[in-house]
């Protein structure tokens, strides 16, 4: 073998690794927020919207879920400029991630909506709640509570999938690793370190989701 590990050389770039990781965290967090918003809207459209709207949402979901994220990313980055929409790599990445997560979270939230018995909505109406109050307190919150585990594991997949946006040279963690690899050729050290950073990020996000769960859906005593 005769291979000497040189983690020292690579670790000299620690600040840049952190910078890349921070961009990965930001990208993922924004994609999760926007993706969930898209998912909630499309799920409401699919479950309660008029036929054409429900149908459009269904087509969107099926098409995105049955094509790879990489191709969706290429499409956003290379094809949108044809329509006059020119995005820098990071914005293109965020848009592609949002579109992708939007489809998955539509399906997840919809499963939650379907778990709400119709009687609950009627009861809300009987109590004189208005439409928005019913959607917020009776439909959405319990629905999201029901599918929270599925939603957060999808969020983790968004974090991991964000590495794919390095394909269009956004400047997140994996893209930085690729650049550094070409400069130093310490491939094993670089990708090993980056893998460990991703694992740490994934566990970190999981801990945050557990915390959010505790705040949003407090366990009532008794």
């Amino acid at each position, binding site marked *: *073998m*005769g*291979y000497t590990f040189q983690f020292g050389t690579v670790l000299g770039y620690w600040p840049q690794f952190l910078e890349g990781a921070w961009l990965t965290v930001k990208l993922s967090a924004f994609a999760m927020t926007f993706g969930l918003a898209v998912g909630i809207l499309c799920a409401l459209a699919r479950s309660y919207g008029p036929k054409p709207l429900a149908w459009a949402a269904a087509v969107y979901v*099926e*098409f995105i*879920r*049955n*094509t*790879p*994220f*990489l*191709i*969706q990313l*290429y*499409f956003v980055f*290379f*094809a949108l*400029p*044809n329509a006059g929409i020119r995005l820098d790599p990071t914005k293109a990445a965020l848009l592609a991630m949002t579109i*992708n997560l939007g489809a*998955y979270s539509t399906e*997840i939230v919809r*499963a939650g909506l379907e778990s709400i018995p119709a009687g609950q909505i009627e009861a809300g109406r009987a109590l004189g709640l208005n439409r928005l109050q019913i959607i917020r307190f009776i439909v959405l919150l319990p629905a999201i509570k029901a599918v929270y585990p*599925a939603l957060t*594991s*999808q969020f*983790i*997949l*968004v974090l*991991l*999938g*964000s*590495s*794919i946006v*390095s*394909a269009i040279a956004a400047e997140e963690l*994996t893209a930085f*690793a*690729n650049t550094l*690899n070409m400069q130093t*050729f*310490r*491939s*094993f050290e670089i*990708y*090993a370190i*980056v*893998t460990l950073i*991703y*694992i740490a990020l*994934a*566990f970190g996000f999981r801990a945050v989701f557990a915390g959010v769960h505790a705040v949003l859906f407090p366990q009532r005593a008794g």
Partner: protein
Amino acid sequence: MLRDFGLNEVWFLVLAARWTLALSAVAFVGGGVVGLLLAVARISPWRWLRVAVSGWIQVVQATPMLMLLLLFYFGINMFGVRIDAWTAAAVAFTIGTSAYLADIWRGCIQAVPQGQWEAAKALALNFRLTLALIVIPQAVRMALPPTVGYMVQVVKGTSLAALIGFTELAKAGAQMNTITFEPVRVFGTVSLLYFAMCFPLSMLARRLERKLHVGSLRVQAL
């Protein structure tokens, strides 16, 4: 424009899809065999083995698939072991796929009622025989829909091999895009080809779920 995007170019992409199918088959078979071993290890009578395997699965599920590919393709080459894109992709996809399949299948094995294990014990069957004759045949029924559903993720996931230079459908699309400058048509065609491979699997998974009357064990991936 160096070249028009015509029927020949579409045919080129169709031929490239063969490699996507070949990679998918390797990933699914490799991931299936290793995944079954992991799933069984996860419920074995030995605590240390269960803990070790469960930790391994969690770590792999916190690692981006792309990192596994880069680690094996660039990382292993550093040690003077020549590894081509095929081998690197096969190993990386096997590791990634097996972690997710193991989780799905463990859930199915554990969903077989405890009484079946006890009855087998009463009949003096050992762990191996109980698993092979009693538990797995019942678990397969439950495992079928989520497994077929996960195959969609496997097919889509193979697109990442493009990023280590393996010429399958996604890479062929990217190449075609650089010589035709027709991103809408090129990536539109590529998307449709992926859709044609994935959508039937998605439909089959849904039909099996309904037919076998099993609760949906949600399969997720980017």
